[in-house]
């Protein structure tokens, strides 16, 4: 009898604990939830995510206006487009396998999914930052004045990369400044406090800060054109098994591009929509577009991807990332992760995890989608 009660008590505790544990560890649940598009169901469903940024607002417009659905229907698949408020969280979700595709910059694509072993393909090269990211000094007008200052920025982001490139351009290094990690949500409030003398950030925060008294933009991404690239990244395995996903996304994207480009009523309406959705208006959105080099035509993007410059850019980015420990535990040097571009492979060709593949954009350019 005693033993019986004791055994039951143990059993009860164990069961209770199991429940408690399963509550506390969402990770196993995540792994179960990993989409396995390998199993070919009749109407395949894919999920892509995006976050608010001038170059990614078209995804919102395309999803709301049914353009994405139209192209998905054409290829007999379903595509769910989700907005995620937190940019980094969206990439983490993609890396964890919750999404088949996600918008991100070239640097984050290298350091988060690729460094995490998720073979990723830059399906669409949408634009590059041409002034959208900038270094701002308070009450100083020369970049060289940054020496010795505290610089508030989102550490390990493209802002950090931009700062490193800016310092390089005047013969300084990160040792000459103190980097203070500051959340992007608090950047504008931070700038208005006395202790902050310098920030690096991106639009729309950048334009708000430069409008404040004493602010001078001393360096921006227009000084390093084509190095901060905005992409739609999809899982390479999913893409190779389901080319329809690539075709539908690229087809939809360039239809949105041709809709929003120009001065027609439809284009103005589209940009007004995108401006509103990103918390500004048509004028504000157009101002952000002015410092973004959008590839409205697929041929432009294809040309950009095929150029030798992309390979050297990825090398610079990989070297920065390695120096800041972003390439992961196993990385012995900057070339640990292979990056495939049409101009050749940078890094370890046996460990290619990031691919710039213009195939689908070429299809769009030749009108074969």
């Amino acid at each position: 009898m005693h033993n019986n009660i004791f055994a039951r008590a143990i059993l009860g505790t164990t069961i209770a604990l199991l429940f408690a544990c399963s509550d506390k560890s969402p990770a196993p649940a995540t792994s179960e939830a990993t989409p396995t598009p390998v199993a070919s169901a009749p109407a395949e469903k894919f999920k892509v995510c995006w976050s608010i940024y001038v170059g990614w607002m078209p995804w919102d417009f395309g999803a709301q206006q049914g353009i994405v659905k139209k192209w998905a229907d054409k290829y007999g698949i379903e595509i769910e487009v989700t907005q995620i408020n937190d940019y980094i969280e969206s990439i983490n979700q993609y890396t964890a396998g919750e999404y088949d595709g996600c918008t991100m910059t070239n640097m984050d694509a290298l350091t988060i999914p690729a460094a995490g072993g998720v073979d990723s393909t830059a399906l669409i090269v949408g634009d590059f930052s041409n002034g959208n990211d900038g270094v701002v000094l308070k009450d100083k007008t020369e970049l060289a004045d940054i020496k010795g200052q505290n610089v508030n920025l989102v550490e390990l982001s493209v802002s950090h990369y931009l700062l490193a490139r800016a310092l390089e351009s005047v013969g300084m290094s990160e040792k000459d400044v103190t980097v203070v990690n500051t959340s992007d949500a608090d950047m504008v409030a931070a700038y208005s406090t006395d202790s902050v003398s310098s920030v690096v950030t991106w639009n729309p925060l950048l334009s708000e800060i430069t409008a404040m008294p004493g602010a001078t933009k001393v360096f921006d991404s227009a000084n390093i054109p084509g190095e901060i690239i905005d992409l739609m990244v999809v899982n390479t395995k999913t893409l190779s098994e389901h080319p329809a996903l690539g075709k539908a996304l690229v087809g939809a994207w360039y239809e949105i591009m041709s809709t929003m480009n120009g001065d027609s009523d439809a284009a103005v309406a589209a940009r007004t929509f995108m401006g509103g959705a990103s918390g500004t208006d048509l004028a504000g959105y157009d101002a952000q577009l002015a410092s973004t080099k959008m590839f409205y035509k697929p041929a432009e993007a294809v040309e950009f991807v095929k150029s030798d410059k992309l390979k050297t850019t990825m090398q610079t980015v990989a070297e920065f990332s390695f120096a800041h420990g972003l390439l992961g535990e196993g990385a012995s040097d900057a070339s640990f992760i292979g990056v495939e571009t049409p101009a050749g492979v940078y890094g370890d060709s046996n460990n290619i995890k990031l691919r710039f593949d213009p195939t689908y954009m070429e299809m769009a350019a030749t009108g074969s989608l």
Partner: protein
Amino acid sequence: MKLINRKPSRPVRVILGILPFLLLLVLYLGASNARLAENPNDKLLPALSTIGAAIERMAFQPDKRSGDVLLWRDTFSSLGRLAVGVSISAACALILGVLMGAIPFARAKLSPLVTAVSLVPPMAILPVLFIVFGLGEVSKIVLIVIGITPFMTRDLLQRVREIPPEQLIKAQTLGANTWQIIVRVILPQILPRLIAAVRLSLGAAWLFLIAAEAIASTDGLGYRIFLVRRYLAMDVILPYVIWITFLAFVVDYLLRRVSLFCYPWFHSQAKEND
């Protein structure tokens, strides 16, 4: 014998206590192995060896950029902020609590204010704190102080008022003035309760510390977690979380020992069983 009367022997208690931790570990290893089998570079649930390597790198090797050993630097910064913030809070709470508990006029004057302030969610006024106190150390400490002082004060006020009035009357018949009553009767009884209040508010203090470090910082345990989150470095985040838990446990344990050593009467009275 009824289940409620059966007490586990010491070895059984130890085994039952360890069991949930083992179960967690087994669950983690299972899930981790499953993910790593699919993708050996997976960052979400790193293998124990990867976590070990990260600990080795963070705790024993100087950082490439700054030359500091990061874990220790983060620990000292965070513990320093925590100590200053909690000490200021405890001092304020003690003074205000005793004053308001002992002197009805002070209570009438301050009680509504303290109650109102204790209801303000500190995270909601964070942007205001930044503008007023800047982004440096001061605002991080102020956040802790604003976060935990009001409810510690309210707790101590309550404890002072729970002192039996007979004691106060007796002290007065023996000729004590207000100051003597506060110092000789109230204060000695309140100090162990202050330690108890500090122990209870430490959890909240950690929360505010880490929140402040996540927003603008150059070092600290919370800073590091939010920084490496940018590239999903779970191999660093998990040991940091365990380390924070351990530190919190040690601080709590030390406070309990201090309280037991200095105020044994309080513990025999309160029959505290933890």
